[in-house]
């Protein structure tokens, strides 16, 4: 507390009494106590003096001419506002009703005639203590209010910063439904979604232990990592591993993040899911069947990297299947009787919904009806990802902002990975990243990634490992294929895959040339059915029909060299609008 309550300090005391005799006596008594006295002869003078001189305590006669003490008391209390100015009526009134009127008008106490100096002193001291206490409390309340406003403002700014980091997501895609409080960040909940460069999307829902700033601080790097890695083509497992490592590094012991990673592959119609510490996810089949997706992992930020398991469960799906994941706020919602909503509440909501109702709406509605107050839903985060036809999803745009710089236009690079690294490491994110430095290619990230991925998997699986894609045509062969792949990856001494990337300007944009060479023995491309248009595509040797067709569809040209172990692809891009790319306008 800033000032001692006990410390006797001279006060300014206003005395209002029309009787000169009484006023003289009281003023003398108050002065004797060491205080400064202001004297008024009626209510009006008292109000005026109060306004001008700001006294600490007011002693007021009830019956006065011009303006009586009651009215003066009312006006003085209004002028004082939130300040506590003790107001003591001077009275020889004895009727209970009259005394009550004084209190109703705002009086705090009475002092009766004849004035007794011991009682007067005790009252002044008591009211001064109360006044100081009130002032200290008011100041502390103002301080708390001010701090709280400041905190809310800071949260608002922090949220804007966070939204800028996280805004590139595709949470608004038509196949995603989500619910999160506007200030979910400070509840410790996060929700990210982004499309992969080569199709499909990744969604993350997380729930940090704790609330407020500590939880929000943990969420920031996750957003950066998530959007950064997904744009570069990293998969869910890679992102999880990076999340875990980062959180392990930055979070204090005892703090962690429960999370669910959902990787939707619309091409192969499957979901890959990782649940670490969140409540059961619910896969709602198009036909209404329910399957649980339970947590099989510890939350993020607990295990060290070498003990962390990033393996995701694969769920084969059909278009129309929906996966629901939610934070434990849902299960912990309580009704007025204190009963928990729980897993059974969610199951009930999903099973009793009408056919046309979205499972997401069913659960949200059920929890809103269940919980005691609407405010409870502020702590809930939920998202639903629906499997859709691949064609339908292609309209989801990667909203990454184009860089304002023209970027590198004339360049060449070679990147070769060798031996053991062939099995351990994917060069695709790195290569894509290099290409994405060219602003004109950024809009084509999906195509470039597909080209690189197709070239790389062919070079590795068919070129270096000499696996036959025929095997993959039967279920038995499929297993054999992957078993063989694993076995052969351990014997890659002397092998390599080399990418040569060149980029140059053209009159209408740019040309990317990708050459992928491997150390394998090649194949007879001269007699490949797809490369010889008169033959029907089908059982080919090294390139399965689909992969090669894809390359031919995306690229300007596909050429095989040497004994078939070197593929050259030309990819041309054009400036979207004549003036949108500064590189093309002044460098031609």
């Amino acid at each position, binding site marked *: 507390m800033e000032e001692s309550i006990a410390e006797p300090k001279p006060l300014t005391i206003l005395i209002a009494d*029309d*009787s*000169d*005799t*009484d006023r*003289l*006596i009281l003023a*003398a*008594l108050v002065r*004797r106590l060491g205080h400064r006295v202001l004297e008024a002869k009626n209510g009006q003078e008292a109000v005026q003096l109060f306004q001008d001189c700001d006294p600490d305590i007011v002693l007021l006669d009830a*019956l006065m001419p011009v303006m009586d003490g009651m009215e003066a008391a009312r006006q003085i209390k209004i002028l004082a506002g939130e300040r506590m100015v003790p107001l003591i009526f001077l009275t*020889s009134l004895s009727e209970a009703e009259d005394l009550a009127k004084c209190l109703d008008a705002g009086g705090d106490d009475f002092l009766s*005639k*004849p*004035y007794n*100096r011991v009682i007067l002193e005790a009252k002044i001291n008591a009211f001064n203590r109360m006044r100081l206490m009130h002032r200290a409390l008011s100041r502390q309340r103002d301080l708390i209010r001010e701090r709280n406003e400041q905190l809310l403002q800071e949260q608002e700014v922090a949220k804007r910063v966070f939204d800028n980091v996280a805004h590139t997501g595709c949470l608004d895609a038509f196949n995603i439904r989500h619910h999160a409080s506007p200030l979910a960040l400070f509840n410790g909940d996060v929700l990210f979604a982004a499309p992969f460069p080569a199709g499909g999307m990744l969604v993350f829902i997380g729930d940090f232990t704790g609330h407020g700033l500590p939880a929000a601080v943990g969420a920031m790097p996750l957003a950066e990592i998530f959007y950064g890695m997904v744009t570069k083509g990293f998969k869910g497992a890679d992102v999880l591993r990076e999340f875990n490592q980062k959180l392990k590094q930055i979070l204090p012991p005892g703090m962690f993040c429960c999370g669910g990673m959902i990787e939707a592959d619309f091409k192969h119609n499957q979901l890959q899911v990782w649940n670490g510490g969140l409540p059961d996810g619910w896969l709602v089949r198009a036909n209404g069947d329910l399957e649980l997706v339970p947590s099989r992992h510890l939350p993020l930020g607990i295990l060290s990297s070498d003990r962390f398991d990033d393996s995701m469960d694969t769920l084969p799906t059909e278009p129309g299947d929906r996966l629901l994941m939610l934070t434990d706020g849902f299960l912990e919602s309580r009704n007025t009787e204190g009963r928990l909503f729980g897993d059974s509440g969610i199951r009930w909501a999903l099973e009793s919904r009408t056919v046309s109702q979205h499972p997401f709406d069913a659960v949200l509605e059920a929890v809103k009806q269940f919980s005691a107050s609407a405010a409870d839903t502020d702590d809930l985060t939920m998202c639903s990802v629906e499997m859709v036809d691949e064609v339908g999803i292609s309209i989801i745009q990667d909203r990454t902002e184009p860089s304002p710089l023209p970027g590198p236009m004339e360049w060449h690079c070679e990147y070769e990975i060798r031996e053991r690294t062939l099995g351990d490491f994917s060069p695709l994110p790195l290569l894509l990243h290099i290409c994405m430095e060219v602003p004109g290619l950024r809009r084509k990230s999906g195509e470039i990634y597909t080209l690189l991925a197709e070239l790389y998997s062919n070079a590795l699986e068919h070129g270096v490992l000499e696996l036959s894609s025929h095997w993959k045509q039967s279920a038995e062969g499929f297993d054999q294929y992957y078993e063989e792949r694993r076995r052969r990856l351990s014997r890659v001494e002397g092998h390599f895959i080399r990418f040569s990337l060149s980029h140059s300007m053209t009159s209408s944009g740019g040309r990317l040339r990708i050459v992928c060479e491997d150390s394998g023995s090649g194949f007879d491309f001269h007699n490949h059915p797809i490369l010889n248009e008169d033959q029907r595509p089908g059982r080919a040797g090294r390139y399965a029909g689909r992969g090669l067709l894809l390359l031919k569809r995306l690229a300007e040209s596909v050429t095989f060299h040497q004994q078939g172990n070197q593929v050259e692809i030309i990819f041309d891009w054009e400036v979207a609008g004549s003036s949108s790319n500064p590189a093309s306008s002044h460098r031609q």
Partner: protein
Amino acid sequence: MAEKPHLDDEALAELQDVMEDEFDVLMRTFLNDSRERIASLKLAVSEQDAEALAHVAHSFKGSCINIGAPHLGELCRAAESAGKEQQLAGVPAIIEAIEAEFRIVTELLQEFMVR
């Protein structure tokens, strides 16, 4: 009801202590105030204004109590009650008693001031 004394010596001694040099000023103020109030009481009676009578008598009573003139205060209380009850018939007699008592108090106080 036992008759109260003309002056409360103890109260006066304390006032003397509190007021110091201003004690005489206080006494003169009281005497002037009282003369005005007696005039106001008479006016109220002649105008049959019971409310004004009660008001003036109330203030007068407070000052008497404060100054240490209990008997005069008691007479003022009687006037105040009569005013409140709108019974003005007996008031002229009360005012006469107030005037008589005031003369005594004045004499006694002047003695007190000389001391």
